């Protein structure tokens, strides 16, 4: 699971008001090289919740993203490459996503987050 997807997931348990961002529990991180694409990054920059991405990246062992970011930074090569690496190349292979309100853990195995709920959570 890429951090881009982590950025798009929220806790879906019934009654949870703000299930975002999910905390990451890391067991294993894998890095996979992805072709660099500026247009894609510029496009995704507007969809990404920056603080959640920066924190997630730090949790995954890559504390290189600035705490805050704005669109003017998309002109800087160094920034774009760090953004690219954090967003697309870091994969949570094994671990869990933790609901910030209830502490319920959603397991991540072989890179797949399991967001299926138990009957009493729907």
């Amino acid at each position, binding site marked *: 699971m890429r951090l881009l997807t982590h950025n798009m997931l929220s806790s879906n348990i019934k009654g949870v008001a703000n299930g975002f961002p999910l905390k990451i529990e890391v067991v294993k991180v894998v890095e996979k090289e992805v072709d660099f694409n500026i247009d894609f990054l510029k496009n995704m920059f507007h969809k990404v919740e920056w603080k959640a991405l920066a924190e997630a990246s730090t949790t995954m062992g890559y504390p290189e993203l600035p705490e805050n970011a704005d669109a003017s930074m998309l002109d800087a090569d160094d920034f774009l490459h760090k953004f690219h690496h954090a967003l697309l190349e870091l994969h949570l292979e094994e671990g869990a996503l933790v609901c910030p309100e209830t502490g319920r853990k959603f397991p991540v195995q072989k890179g*797949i987050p399991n967001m299926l709920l138990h009957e009493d959570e729907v």
Partner: protein
Amino acid sequence: MESHYTCRAAAVFHYSLYSVGGRVGSGRVTSRKRSYLKMLSRTAKIPLVSSHPEVYEPCDDSFALVDALLADRTNLLQHHPSICMEIGCGSGYVITSLAVMLGDEEFVPYYIATDINPHAIKVTRETMDAHGVYAELVNTDITSGLEKRLARSVDVLVVNPPYVPTPEDEVGCEGIMSAWAGGENGRSVIDKILPAANNLLSDRGWLYMVTLTANNPSEICLEMRKKGYASRIILQRSTEEESLHIIKFWRDSDSQLELKNLDYWTKMVRN
């Protein structure tokens, strides 16, 4: 009712036999098969589609959806989607085909696919790996967990829903049954997917969905029109077992203006 849903099951069984044969014989590729593969070079290749006893294998409905996407490929390329998604990816045949047919572009969209069946997720990963394409995969019910952050973001959404009319208590069962059990008129899951799709589609979002005549496609189009969507049946195909329609939906502000006319048509349909 029973005879209806065994059709899709029977088709699965039939296809399993074919695809096993295909894999065993893959060392000696016949010329007929080679030209077949060439024709399908813009789609996922059947011998490379992974399988599992609990995962629905590509069938007439999957082929119809992929053929419809292929026929609309020029439009899709011009559309430059940022985010492409499949709800219920099953074997991965459709999302892989989509990634392959849009793969010539320099701009690679973010592909994401969901399935309620964990075996399907695993098989989709294998199918995509075999074709050298990638999607993020989430094991979830429809779009659960993604609806907040992915709202109004998806530019292309493809769905081959469980559309087969079955007893209501078979809906949402585990494993392969989740791939076809559609409840009354085959609409139980479709009617959950449509609001989820409406939430996820971007302003320029397109939805491609497989339906069966029994699902009442014209009623589905009318209901989507109330939500502001125009629609067109872009492919119609009758097989021995079923009559399939692939419908394309897109947001159309004019549709909202036609609501008054719509009320008239809705009454006509219901009467």
